[in-house]
């Protein structure tokens, strides 16, 4: 369970997150909002790249913000980026193994864990093949494999389906749905594709201009008047 309370992030005069308080219980949670709403900023706070002006994040009882950024992988935070970050120079195996290696996982289980993660996401390639030979969809799957390897506790997926055709998005959704059951990790999914979010997430939180405007069961949130307004840009009725 992740409890976020009073989280505020400012960049100069811009308030990216304004007193955000939300609880992500378990399973797969969606985080949606128009461009510039603060979704990636929230992820950057959780990864330790951005220091909030105020607020706290308690993750499974630990004060996440007090952990140095590179130690958070060891704690159990995994993350994918909007632009995929597979390392060109390394093989598929080493790309996943690298995460396992630096997240403090035992060496003895590395081979099994890595191959397990690769087969879990359904990446049907030779683990020894270089990343350069992979297609866009395969690289996205590789990113997810990197995020689920070695006992994660919190998986952050930042637009994992960006640039994917519908058929491949469906396959990715299937994988994302299985992450909590398989790894026990709380998964937070940021995406603009509403069908992906509603298909994967039991609960969803909505950000708009740094403010949390709704959270709760996904179907209910997506019908919420304020959410519809934020997305369609209807003028505020006084």
């Amino acid at each position, binding site marked *: 369970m992740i409890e976020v309370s009073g989280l505020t992030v400012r960049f100069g005069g811009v308030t990216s997150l304004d007193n955000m308080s939300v609880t992500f219980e378990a399973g797969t949670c969606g985080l949606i909002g128009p461009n510039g709403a603060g979704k990636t900023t929230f992820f950057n706070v959780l*990864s*330790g*790249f951005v220091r909030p002006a105020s607020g706290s994040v308690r993750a499974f009882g630990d004060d996440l913000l007090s952990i140095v*950024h*590179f*130690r*958070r*992988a*060891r704690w159990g*935070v*995994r*993350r994918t*980026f909007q632009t995929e*970050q597979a*390392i*060109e*120079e*390394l*093989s598929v*195996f*080493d790309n996943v*193994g*690298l*995460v396992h*290696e*630096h*997240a*403090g996982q035992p060496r003895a289980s590395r*081979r099994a864990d890595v*191959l397990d993660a690769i087969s879990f996401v359904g990446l049907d390639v*030779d*683990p*020894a*093949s*270089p990343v*350069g*030979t992979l297609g866009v969809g395969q690289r996205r799957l590789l990113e997810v494999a*990197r995020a689920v390897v070695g006992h994660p506790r919190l998986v952050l997926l930042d637009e994992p389906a960006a640039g994917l055709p519908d058929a491949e998005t469906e396959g990715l959704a299937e994988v994302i749905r299985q992450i909590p059951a398989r790894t026990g990790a709380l998964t937070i999914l940021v995406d603009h594709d509403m069908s992906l979010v509603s298909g994967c997430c039991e609960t969803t939180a909505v950000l708009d201009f740094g403010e949390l405007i709704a959270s709760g069961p996904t179907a209910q949130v997506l019908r919420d008047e304020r959410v519809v307004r934020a997305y369609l840009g209807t003028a505020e009725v006084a």
Partner: protein
Amino acid sequence: MLDVAESPDSADSTASARLSGLRLPTRPTLIRSAVIVVLLVFVLLGLPQLLSLYYVDAMTQVTVYAMVALGLGVLVGRVGLMSLGQVAVLAVGAWSAARLLFGTGQPYPLVLLEAGLVTMILGTVLLLPALRLRGLYLALITLMLAGAVTVVLATLNFPNGGHGFTGYNGNQTHIPPIRRPSIATSDPAYFRYAVVVAVVMFALVAIHIRTRPGRAWAAIRQSEPAALTVGINTTLYKLWAVALASFVTGVAGGVYAGAVHYLYSIDFPAYTSITILAVVLMGGAYSLWGAVVAGLLMQLLPALLQNWGVSNDWLTILFGIGVVQVLTTAPRGLADQFPKDMAKLGKLLAGLVRRPVPAAVPETTGGETP
């Protein structure tokens, strides 16, 4: 063994060997190892016999600068740190080795190791504040540091057998030469000795690239934030790269001290660092072969030009054009481009040989139409 993690098939073969749990070398690996062994045997046994002493000396310098290029290759090619201070690091290694060789009777390999370690510590401490900088600013800071080290060395002087910490005696009339290992006092023998030391250094770096630090460096070079999120302590691994590069360069300094017998601060001008970076970029910072090419460009080319009576100033122009050419057409350097060009040339020649056969077809059809 040399171009680790560069060509996809080598990464492929190591990974598959690991996956299968067996370390059976694949065919490309075998061929590559065979080529390296044959080359080494030739360099160690054949080359000193074939060359005049002038070129043997030049080749010893090539070996020294191949090690310097190897160190800079770790910085530029692995973690993206552009250093313009490598000649100062080399000078620190040479100074430490010379001081130890005059002051103690330790065996040469031990002195090289110690000189490497001293340089590693000094080089890392010097670059510590610079680690937060990148690109142009890092290059400028390192150039300034190299200048500062040159000034310090000009005042301190290199050891010449005197007493005290500096080991310098300005009144000495007879200056003893810096000693060489007893098994390698002659120039050809010392060349072989230098090559063996260089092989050890190349192997050290190759092992680093293939294992945990190498993978961490690959992640850092691609994206530091992404590296942090997978749990890589980027500062530690960058420092590690700096330490390794300084160690290798320090050892090179030790080999240099024995090669030239006498050291003067004027032999380490700060601007040489710029030439070193240029040849590393031309040779290829991402491959270990690139370091060998860089060493040849840096030391064999001037020796050839001097022998032919061509002014060395042409080299400056040549390197300038070379860097621009490489950065625009072959960013991975000559070590990567040359085999590709050769393959292309081979295809072209093969095409020329085969051409007459298909060319005959349109002629006959053309003849039938009217």
